[in-house]
């Protein structure tokens, strides 16, 4: 299987892009100022849509970008009209001020999950608008600021048309590159499953804050340009409707697609202008459009078109049925970076939820390359132990030492980078990404950190070394026929195997598997056990396995730790544990 891009679509794509660019450049010759103003508004909208979409990929929507737009516009207005700055120079604070505000808000608020960010971002727009009206000395209150000079060198509407044309082309290409970059895949991974993303070394907080700040900065820049174009700013021009419009651009177009903001922004901006509707009618039009799209086409217009095209291409019916391959191929799994396993020492680990002790003075050790099984009845604290080891829950006492480094206070993605990876029972894979993309993310989790430029702009197809590793892993796990299938449409057993492949791809020195065979058929269990043995043989990594299936544990493990009510009640070789009367009591005497 290869991943090169087919030639024909690329040539066609370039031809279309060239034709569009030519048409845009020729437009001023054919159109009057009114129509140029319309196109120019659409260009601004498209850029605002691009800026907003980044964070949307992570599953969080900002309802406050109208605030950033206003901040950029007022920064330019105040600096040029009041303090006589050169307008070009004033664009710099128009970028920096919204970016700084986004940073200050994003760091605390993006930490909380759920709808908090959405609600607070709503507050950004509201607070900024209230400041514009109330800080009269600075902003001129409700009267606003007049006499903002145009950008030197740009006089007419046509001049501004060309400027924004250039901005949208440069911006479009930049976001097109970003869409093909490692960063976009990481953002989508965070949107798909935040826990799994941090388990393979992706920092949720850092990526989301970066997406938010970049989006705010771009929005501010456009606000600044807009202020010089209109020559006048007032709070009424920055009502909370601006925030709603910016939100709708990508949602109507399709947030998952690069072309989504283009389609959405063009639709929302041009149709009302064509019909010359009143303000209330435009509001009604936009609100009804977004409501209908959310109800009927949750993936937006582009998503719906994509689905229809895919359906006609395939004839009828949905995803093609998948066949199970009999066994894992014998190909060798690639040589790891970290040779061998690490030593994990857990001592005196404590944790309680409310009044319930879920970890009570837990101590055990796993030697390099050892396979340690962790068993116990439901509620014994096994999953809590994994959450503690991998940084999802911080212990209230005790130490976790990974090859001499204390990790009990680190966040999950740092722990992964130090060599301890875990899998999950529930969110095993990224459902909306393909098998290939799933494993690629895992492989990146093993590598060194990329520079930010590389992460944002290097196309995913140009990571030849990493791609080779992915292909080897796909081959050796017998996943070749599903390589470009979205993981969510695969059968349960295959997803379980893929979850393991992602974990292995991060080249861990300690791998914690949470119920790797739960819910599998006997044949699938055999396949999974065989795969685990092979992986362990080739990589000599340390394995921690939580599992209920006794034959699997007893057959696979060098040593078994038995837990009950948050405590370690016994440990030893499988034979010792099986003979231990305490274990019998835990399992049978109740």
């Amino acid at each position: 299987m290869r991943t090169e891009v087919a030639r024909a679509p690329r040539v066609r794509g370039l031809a279309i892009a060239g034709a569009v660019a030519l048409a845009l450049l020729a437009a001023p010759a054919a159109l009057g100022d009114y129509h140029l103003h319309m196109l120019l508004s659409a260009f601004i909208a498209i850029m605002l849509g691009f800026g907003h979409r980044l964070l949307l990929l992570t599953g969080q929507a900002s309802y406050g970008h109208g605030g950033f737009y206003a901040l950029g516009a007022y920064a330019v207005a105040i600096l040029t009209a009041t303090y006589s700055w050169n307008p070009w120079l004033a664009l710099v604070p128009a970028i920096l001020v919204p970016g700084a505000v986004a940073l200050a808000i994003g760091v605390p608020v993006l930490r909380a999950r759920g709808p908090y960010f959405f609600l607070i971002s709503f507050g950004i727009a509201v607070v900024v608008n209230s400041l514009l009206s109330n800080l009269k000395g600075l902003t001129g209150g409700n009267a606003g600021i007049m006499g903002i000079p145009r950008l030197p060198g740009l006089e007419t509407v046509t001049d501004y048309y060309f400027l924004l044309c250039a901005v949208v082309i440069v911006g479009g290409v930049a976001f097109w590159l970003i869409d093909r970059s490692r960063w976009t895949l990481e953002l989508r991974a965070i949107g798909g499953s935040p826990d799994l993303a941090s388990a393979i070394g992706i920092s949720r907080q850092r990526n989301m804050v970066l997406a938010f700040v970049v989006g705010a900065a771009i929005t501010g820049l456009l606000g600044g340009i807009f202020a010089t174009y209109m020559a006048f700013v007032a709070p009424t021009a920055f009502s909370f409707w601006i925030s709603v419009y910016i939100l709708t651009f990508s949602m109507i177009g399709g947030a998952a697609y690069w072309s989504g903001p283009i389609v959405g922004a063009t639709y929302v901006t041009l149709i009302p202008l064509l019909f010359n509707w009143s303000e209330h009618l435009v509001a009604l039009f936009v609100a009804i459009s977004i409501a209908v799209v959310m109800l009927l086409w949750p993936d937006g217009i582009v998503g719906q078109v994509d689905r229809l095209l895919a359906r006609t291409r395939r004839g009828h019916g949905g995803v093609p049925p998948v066949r199970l391959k009999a066994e894992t191929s014998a190909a060798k799994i690639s040589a790891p970076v970290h040779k061998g396993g690490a030593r994990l020492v857990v001592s005196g680990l404590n944790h309680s939820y409310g009044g319930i002790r879920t970890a009570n003075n837990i101590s055990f050790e796993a030697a390099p390359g050892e396979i340690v099984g962790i068993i116990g009845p439901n509620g014994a604290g096994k999953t809590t132990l994994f959450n503690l080891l991998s940084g999802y829950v911080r212990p209230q006492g005790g130490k976790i030492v990974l090859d001499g480094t204390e990790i009990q206070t680190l966040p999950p993605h740092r722990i992964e980078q130090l060599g301890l990876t875990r899998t999950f029972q529930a969110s095993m894979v990224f459902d909306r990404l393909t098998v290939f993309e799933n494993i690629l993310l895992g492989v990146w989790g093993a590598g060194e950190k990329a520079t930010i430029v590389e992460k944002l702009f290097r196309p995913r197809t140009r990571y030849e070394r990493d791609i080779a590793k992915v292909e080897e892993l796909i081959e050796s796990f017998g996943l070749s026929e599903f390589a470009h299938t979205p993981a969510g449409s695969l059968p349960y057993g295959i997803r379980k195997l893929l979850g393991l492949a992602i974990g292995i791809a991060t080249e861990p020195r300690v791998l914690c598997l949470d119920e790797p065979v739960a819910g599998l058929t006997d044949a699938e269990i055999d396949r999974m056990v065989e795969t685990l043995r092979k992986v362990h043989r080739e990589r000599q990594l340390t394995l921690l396995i939580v599992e209920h299936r006794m034959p699997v544990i007893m057959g696979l493990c060098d040593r078994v730790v038995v837990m009950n009510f948050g405590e370690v009640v016994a440990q030893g070789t499988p034979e010792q544990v099986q003979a231990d009367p305490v274990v019998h009591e835990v399992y049978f005497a109740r």
Partner: protein
Amino acid sequence: MLLVQVVLNGLTAGAMLALMSIGLTLIFGILGVVNFVHGVIFMLGAYITIYFTAELGMNYFVSIMLACVLGAILGVVLEAAFFRRFRGKVLEGAVFAVALALSLEALAFEIFGGAPRGVQTPLPGVINVAGLIVNKHRLLVVAAALLLVLGLYWFVRSSRYGRAMRAVQQDAYAARLQGIEDSRIAVLTFAIGAALAAVAGGLVAPLQLALPDMGTTPLLLAFVVIIVGGMGSISGAFWAAVLIGLVQSAVTTFWSPQAVIGVTFFIAMLMLALRPTGIAGHAH
């Protein structure tokens, strides 16, 4: 003396806010819907009350009852027709709710027009105790709000349906396994929340001029309240409503009414930074 007056005003504002926020927090906690339509229902409650009282000459209290019933029906329709489809999709549901609220508000401008409407209170005049001035109607609002909040608290704590609601809030799947029909609970929750919002609108109708966008500010303040109170918690929402009511009163008196929203959202952000689970403090 001024301070006592500010506190008094704050408590009456807080009582009204509690009515708005508790429905909002219930709907979020149990159904995971960020209900931006709540402000529109508040506005409709005011318009319905005004219509029955001023146009049809009905008794004010009867009109509020009617607003309550119509609000509940609207809540049921919204849940059954729309929000049901967004179960488990918080973001999509929230964006849809924003759009729906804005459409309804724009529609209200087309139907009701932009001219302000008003209605007389059945309890005109003020009580003047040693220089402290309290509008009689405000006392009525406080009494009605306290009664409704306590009634709801009792309902959710002790009644069969209330227990079912809390069960769905904690684990919808497990509740279903116990034979609780969660779609019925969803409808009930929406009906209760919408009825409370409509009553709140009817109660404040005599105190301010009614306009189609009159629900925006109470909605924003209610969002602050449920963030500060911890989303999904009734008692948290109640205490947060009192707190935000006091802040609103103080900012209005000592600074400017326009600054209220800004200051309260700032408090919500601080709260998220320092204690993301809110006053009541159970993680969701």
